[in-house]
């Protein structure tokens, strides 16, 4: 059964209300959308404010655009939100104190393991190896 909920209103097309209008400068808008993706909607389950239609997210998007338009840097916008909602609001862990370890360990692990493999497998040996003929034509997948 199809029942019209809202009658079709025949009226001239009007421009949309400006509440969620993008910033006029595309570069600024891109920065704003980037921030929207990394700030958490605090009333939602594991969603950034960019993805939610909750009022908190709408207000947050508005605030981000305002701050960016006023000339705030990305860091200042993040700090603004963190000071209000705590570190929990930011999906980007800060780069200070113990979180330096968090950010650094993948690269340290890569370097450490790389050096270990290099030393252990290839260190201090001189070999005279010849390529193995690719006898089957099916290479690595064989």
């Amino acid at each position: 059964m199809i029942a019209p909920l809202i009658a079709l209103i025949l009226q001239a097309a009007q421009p949309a209300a400006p509440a969620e209008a993008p910033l006029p400068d595309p570069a600024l808008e891109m920065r704003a959308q980037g921030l929207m993706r990394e700030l958490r909607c605090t009333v939602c389950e594991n969603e950034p404010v960019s993805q939610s239609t909750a009022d908190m997210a709408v207000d947050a998007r508005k605030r981000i655009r305002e701050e960016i338009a006023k000339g705030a840097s990305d860091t200042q916008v993040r700090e603004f939100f963190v000071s209000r909602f705590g570190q929990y609001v930011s999906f980007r862990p800060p780069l200070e104190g113990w979180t330096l370890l968090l950010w650094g360990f993948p690269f340290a692990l890569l370097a450490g393991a790389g050096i270990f493999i290099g030393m252990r497998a290839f260190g201090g040996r001189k070999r005279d190896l010849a390529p193995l003929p690719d006898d089957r034509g099916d290479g690595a997948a064989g």
Partner: protein
Amino acid sequence: MIAELGHLLAFLALAAAIGQSALGLTTGGEAPRRLAFACGIFSVLAMLTLIISFVQLDFSVALVAENSHTLKPLIYRIAGAWGNHEGSMLLWCMVMAGYGAAASVFMRAGPLRDKALGVQGLLTTGFFAYLLFASSPFTRLIDPPFDGGGMNPLLQDPAVALHPPALYLGYVGMSFVFSLAASGLINGQIDQEWARRTRPWALFAWSSLTVGIALGAIWAYYELGWGGWWFWDPVENASFMPWLVSAALIHSLIVTEKRGGMASWTVFLSVLTFILALLGTFLVRSGVMTSVHAFATDPTRGLVLLFGLSIAGGAALALFAWRAPTLKAGPEFDPVSREGALVLNNLFLAVAAALVLVGTVTPMILQWLGESGIISREAASISIGEPYFQLTLAPMIAMLLLFMPFAQAAPWRKAELGPLMKWLMPAAAVAVVAAIVALAMGGWGIWLGFGVLVGVWVVVGVGMDVVRRVGPGGFGRVLRLPLTVWGMAIAHIGMGLFVIGATVETATRTEQTFPLRPGEVAEMAGWTFQFQNLEEVEGPNYSALRANILVTHDGRTEVIQPETRTFQVARTSTTEVAIRKTLGGDVYVALGDQVREDPSAWRIRIAYHPLIDWVFGGAGLIAVGGFLSLVARVRRRSAAPAPETEATVESPPAPASVPA
């Protein structure tokens, strides 16, 4: 009666699994093989009885009463059987027993099969015991309700109906790879023959896991209404970690099979993959986090799972530590060689898995520390999400792809880097041009540039390698190219396309929410959207609000109809987005909430997702490549049991020896 029959069948499966493990680990031979087969049959029948209860809407079964409803369409009644904790545990047990049954059919007799069936029987016993004594799906209600409680409406979707079976074929498949590793360790026989017989199972499990994860991503994209396909949610990461480690495994198995090298590392990866699969199950099922997947929020179940996980993982690592020193090192190879490239592949994948693991569990551990008062609440409050994973994972994936064409073209043992690089120059040139074009079109982001660069590099480089293997001599040779080459090339090209799609989509997608009153128009990137009206539509078990939106682009107009569906029984609503496919990507429109201050206006979310099909298509090709490699192996084995004597296509020389 049917539920009691299912209960009985599950107990029979448990008994068969106990016998299978006892006999497999001791006498071996025909008896454990037959028991493994019987265990598989009993489990399938037990699952079938549960499905019948769901289809018949037998509300005297507690699980059906909680999770089904008379208004639910048939296919979702069937899928409802595994869309809950108890049913999904039965599915898990069935797949686990099914792998044992498959091994009893496909594997040759011998100590490898005996001990593998024994270990698999032990695992199956554990999971069936957990199922029957901690979460039985067959419990009856004394006072059955008139109608059922429904199912989470988000899960009423074809992709998500198939998502758990595919995912479990992957997850649980890792249990059989683990059993094969344990069997090899017990027998003291981790060699080329072991790798040759283990690899098909690893390939099948990994390819299924790929399909399962991709279905989940597709579902998120279409069903959640945000247009995202990956959220770095702990649940997603729980499946991504075993995927990364098993991707490393199927590559290190190649080195073990072809050259006898990396044996202990390969076995370690087999063990680790299974432990990560168990850890994923624990994270999802223990209620340590909230999500659509967390059916069970009962902490005692979590404790039982954690206990089982510790025993299985601990025993496996102990077995490994005991036997690993006896494993021989493989033959020597030069750092610049196919072996060397595959070592790098494993390095990048292992670091990637480690960083996903740390990024996933750190917030949980901190939260727990904060709640127990060990650290302050401020210190415990941290989120680790997309920015962290993107910034740390992207370099690993970029390096992985950078070495991929080299790995395909380099000969075993030793390669000459100079001629290889010279030979791959065209691929590099095309990649650089493509990256510059992408940057000029999509804005000057560093990730966009890198993603397109390595993606195009892989696609062209792999294509060149296929051409090299075909060699001169016309189209006939293309058809005679071994299936294994196609498997490898298709999976690698899929990886390249996926990376291009994922970086372009992430870097250049645009999204915007417009509050629109009927008649109003929104404009985005050359498209206009006129919100015409809203109508109410009745579905089988929901009522929907459907927006009619007139879309105009390039002088063509059409009406698209995004919906929000409200499911009366579950009192929740879902979003049905309207998607308009174009060559370059998707125009994605979702109907949001009513605006608080202005009840005649509705929030309409409009987004453009460039190259989104490359993301899903690339993932699909990765899985297709994996399955092709598997088919090639099975076919070759039945055609020629002794690998040395088989007829092969004569190969053109490797590029290292091609005069450039």
